[in-house]
């Protein structure tokens, strides 16, 4: 089935609320109200086959929650996740569900926590193969694990070692090998390089790009690092307090950012080219997702906010191949400017 089209992965109205209230008894005794964190508050994303869709945002914006919702680690509070035409929450037989799960895998942030410290690398990588019954025997399993290790540029003999014998970058390679073990088509990568040193980060990013090309993988890439996102993505979605404020093809997003929050985030990227580019540090901090501001949640920090922004939640409107949820853009109050970045000489 080549060409899954624009809707290989389709996320509609996805919401996830977390109840962070004190225990019932404490609440009743102290007269405290229920507290709900709106970690993800209604987002729509479509990911095409073979592309890298990135979600960026500051901590607490809900991007990691989206990743976990997509792979089924949390059930959604509302909304729908479709994978290659299959509703993930729909009724599937056990084997159908396993078949769907096999096709999507996740790579985690912390290479020190994502591998079971008591297992040998061989068993860690073999676990998905065994769980999905993909191998025909011991020899086949060994061959598969060896091939996977080679694919991430590790030595098949490394399979006998334990995770603690490897550096952070090598562990992340092991995580990737494990994620690839079930021959998935879709990988959800939650900050896969943010715990790594830059030179190692480059190795892992290059590896991910190579693998994508070779295995026709589709990535959902979660990161707070805009430079990394710029480097690796086909399209980018910017999240703020559980909502998508802007989605655009990568170049458009970085050259012609529209939402004031996107502009602000771009301003925070350090100027490595030493161009003396003017940066205006953003004022204020991200408010608590427990009681998010009314209307557009960004309005308390937004220099362009008016009364409508305080009252009415902006809708995502299509613009220049993407969407943006901003009243100021919709009303034409905020002109869209081109940005240039000096070339690396």
């Amino acid at each position, binding site marked *: 089935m080549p060409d899954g089209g624009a809707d290989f992965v389709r996320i509609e109205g996805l919401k996830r609320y977390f109840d962070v209230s004190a225990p019932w008894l404490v609440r009743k005794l102290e007269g405290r109200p229920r507290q709900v964190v709106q970690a993800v508050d209604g987002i729509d994303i479509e990911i095409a086959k073979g592309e890298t869709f990135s979600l960026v945002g500051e901590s607490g914006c809900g991007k990691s929650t989206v990743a*976990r919702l997509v*792979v*089924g*680690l949390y059930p959604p509070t509302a909304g729908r996740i479709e994978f290659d035409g299959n509703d993930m929450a729909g009724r599937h037989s056990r084997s159908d*569900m*396993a078949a769907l*799960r*096999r096709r*999507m*895998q*996740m790579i*985690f*942030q*912390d290479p020190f*926590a*994502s*591998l*079971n*410290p*008591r297992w040998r690398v061989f068993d860690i990588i073999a*676990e*998905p193969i065994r*769980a*999905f019954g993909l191998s025909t025997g011991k020899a086949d399993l060994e061959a598969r694990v060896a091939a996977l290790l080679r694919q991430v540029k590790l030595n098949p*003999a490394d399979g*006998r*070692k*334990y995770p603690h*014998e490897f550096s952070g970058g090598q562990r992340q390679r092991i*995580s990737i090998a*494990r994620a690839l073990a*079930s021959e998935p088509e879709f990988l959800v990568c939650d900050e896969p390089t943010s715990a790594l040193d830059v030179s190692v980060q480059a190795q892992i990013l290059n590896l991910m790009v190579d693998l994508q090309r070779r295995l026709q993988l589709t990535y959902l890439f979660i990161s707070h690092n805009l430079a990394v996102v710029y480097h690796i993505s086909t399209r980018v979605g910017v999240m703020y307090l559980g909502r998508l404020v802007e989605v655009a093809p990568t170049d458009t997003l970085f050259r012609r950012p529209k939402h004031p929050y996107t502009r602000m985030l771009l301003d925070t990227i350090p100027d490595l080219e030493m161009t003396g580019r003017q940066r205006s540090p953003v004022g204020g901090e991200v408010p608590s997702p427990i009681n998010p501001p009314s209307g557009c949640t960004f309005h308390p920090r937004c220099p362009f906010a008016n009364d409508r922004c305080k009252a009415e939640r902006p809708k995502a409107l299509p613009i220049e191949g993407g969407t943006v949820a901003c009243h100021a853009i919709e009303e034409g109050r905020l002109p869209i400017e081109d940005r240039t970045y000096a070339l690396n000489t």
Partner: protein
Amino acid sequence: MAAASRSGFSGWLHRVSDSDVWWSFKSSPMTVAAAVATFLIIAVAFLSPVLAPHTPFDPATLSLSDGLKPPVLVSPDGEWAFPLGTDDQGRDVLSSIMYGTRLSLIVSLAAVAVAMVLGISLGLISGYFGGAIDAVIMRVADVQLTFPAILVALLIDGVVRGLISVKRHDEIAIFVVVGAIGLSFWVSYARTVRGSVMVEKNKEYVQAARVIGLSPLLIMVRHVLPNVTGPVLVIATLNLGLAIITEATLSFLGVGLPSTEPSLGTLIRLGNEVLQSGDWWITVFPGVTLAALVLAVNLLGDWLRDALNPKLR
């Protein structure tokens, strides 16, 4: 690093001798002494049928004329055949202690095993699933913790006694004691395991296992359990000391093992009855053995707790 990946037994041996735990063991003379003492006591106790000079609870070998002989070293009335003296029935105190220690150890090890299985299972369930199941298990644990373990054990023993005849009770006494002690100790395992599970289950390797759709039971057994064994081992060791004492206390109070099958506690009780007449050795030697055993086990447990705690290293 290459050495650490050697497989098989030699690889394992190498890893152990290279590990921080082994190193911390070697560098603590007190711990080495405690380990040697524990090992010796356990070895002698379990080899008592071979090593003991007498079989003190075989009436055929007893002779009342040997009764109440004092220890050899303190009195000219002693005989070398009974180095630690005899009791009023003519039983050799040394042999009684060896057999008694064996029984005490069997009962406490079994009790610890019961507590471990119960506590670990409940702790895993409680920690992994959380919610209402967790609340119920932990409240039961809280309630049980408000009673001293000995009281719980007495209660269980009392209930069983009420249900069956005295003779029948003597036959199954050992199971009742094991159950009673085991049931009164599960809480600390459950709490520790629950805490560790709550930490481990949010780690990414457990989430990675969930992503491939493994069942909660498999995840608990394969992934979570092996990573909570450290703290469990510490509690088990410290608990062994407690279990030995609890068994002794129960037996001393007369609700533990019957005098036909005496444990260390039973021996102390029997000796205590004749203590007023000056026959001190019958109760003092089992008492000293009990104290030494518990001390050695506790020292080991304390060391293990520190050695496995990365914060203290």
